[in-house]
């Protein structure tokens, strides 16, 4: 694993970005990594654009500021692409993962990333979520896509942690649906 990975999440309040950031942080802890996960709090209402941040590192993390230059950007809601500058500060060699039906090529064009040394990944997390969870909660499938694209965790590592934490709160049906959604997103995400 590289020294420090900085992930910025873009979502609308209520889509579960904070839960996703937490899931990633807790999975990192199980791999004996250091991590931080923090939402950017504001006077938020359901549906308002929000940001959340996750840092993962093999070394203790000392800094406490927003992530302005992420290695990884995750966008849970594609309607944000036209109203929030989601690629702002994205580092060279980094990656952006968007919940959308569009292809990575179309996305790269839309985001103005042609010629940039960044990878662009797309996955229909909402579609997967509607089929598996019967609701549009794209957060857990996006974690599956994140694992595949970044290599931060294996599929098994994500699933084992998800089973453990969701097991305390949810029924087996809900856990199974979440596992299915993570697996599908892991397999279906395409990178360009």
């Amino acid at each position, binding site marked *: 694993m590289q020294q420090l990975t900085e992930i910025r999440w873009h979502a609308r309040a209520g889509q579960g970005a904070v839960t996703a*950031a*937490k899931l990633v*942080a*807790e999975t*990192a*802890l199980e791999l004996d990594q*250091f*991590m*931080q*996960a*923090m*939402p950017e*709090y504001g*006077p938020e209402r359901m549906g308002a654009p929000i940001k959340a941040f996750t840092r993962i590192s093999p070394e*203790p*993390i*000392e*800094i*406490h*500021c*927003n992530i*302005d230059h992420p290695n990884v950007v995750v966008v849970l809601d594609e309607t944000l692409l036209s109203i929030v500058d989601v690629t702002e500060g994205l580092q060279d060699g980094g990656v952006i993962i968007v919940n959308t039906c569009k292809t990575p090529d179309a996305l790269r064009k839309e985001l103005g990333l042609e010629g940039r040394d960044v990878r662009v990944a797309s996955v229909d997390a909402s579609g997967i979520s509607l089929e598996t969870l019967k609701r549009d909660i794209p957060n857990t499938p996006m974690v599956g896509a994140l694992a595949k694209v970044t290599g931060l965790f294996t599929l098994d590592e994500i699933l084992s942690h998800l089973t453990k934490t969701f097991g305390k709160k949810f029924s087996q049906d809900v856990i199974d649906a979440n596992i299915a959604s993570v697996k599908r997103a892991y397999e279906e995400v395409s990178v360009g």
Partner: protein
Amino acid sequence: MVEQKVVAATGNTVVAEAMRQCKPDVVAAYPITPQTTIVEEFAAFVAKGRVHTEYVTVESEHSAMSACIGASAAGARVMTATSSQGLALMWEELYIASGMRLPIVMANANRALSAPINIHCDHSDAMGARDAGWIMLFAETAQEAYDNTIMAVRIAEDYEVLLPVMSCLDGFITTHSIDRVSLLDDESVAGFVGEREAERALLDLEHPVTHGAFAGLGGPYLEFKKAQRQAIERSRAVVKRVGDEYAALSGRPFGVLETWGMDDAEVAVVVIGSTAGNVRHVARALRADGKKVGVVKIRCFRPFPYAELAEALSGVKAVAVMDRAESFGAEGGPLYLETRSALYDASNRPAVVGYVYGLGGSDVKLELVESVYGDLLDIAGGAAAPAGPVYLGAR
């Protein structure tokens, strides 16, 4: 050192956990904003029977502290939590808690005061209460917030001290961020904090006493205040002793101030709270570049470690003091004033520049910290010190 459980949790969660482990007899709190989830999570522990505490929800923060005062005078171990405007509303009760020498422990999520309205991190709330006679600890991380909460109980209830302790952690940055934290087991904490032994409890009917009586003209008011000063002076040794014992238990050293790179530093930043991490991060990079920079983090603000700070700064040419609070009309923020005071008797006084930063949660970007060290290195090289306080990052 005992084995510990490593968790991914927010500052609020681990402070609530520390409170549960300290087994308070009474927690009185106002459960509505600007309150944090500390008391919400603690209420869940009570509801689930994981701690046997009389949990009193009251109609305001003023009443919360009033209830804490009554319970503490009765002989109970009492804890609570607050933040921002809530702490401001407690103001008159804070003085009653310390004046009655009640060892109440209160977590405070450091957040801005209105106006304009703002819910984010700064130290204005705590610094507004700095003269209220409370011992004040500050945490850089969720780990320190957890550790400080446990140590606070021992410090407050020590019979040489008997003063309330405010355990501060940065709002949102520490309270709401998930961090990696090592937790002690319940038995170790219970053994460390022990039981409160109140010697003049109001509910000790065999030995009736009066608390908080009238001490007006001709009365011993002046003497009471002198005794309070003597108590907080005695707390210096107690804070260190409890810190050493806690370090032996947890493996995590505690200092009233903690230094980085100060052995041969030519310039130094003095700072409180989560920003200390940002400053140390920048200092590491500058050190790798051959610059002799250091960091001093204040962990105990009341009583203030004057002698320790003067000693830490004895070899430097220039000092930046970063205040996340204002003292309008003064030469700088509260930490600046204390630092200048600590250096007054020093034989070799460095240049001291005050910076006000991060008010209302404005982001403490690494570039801002770099600019502070840039100023200091210029001053050490002979440049004039800028007139302070410098408003860091203000548009």
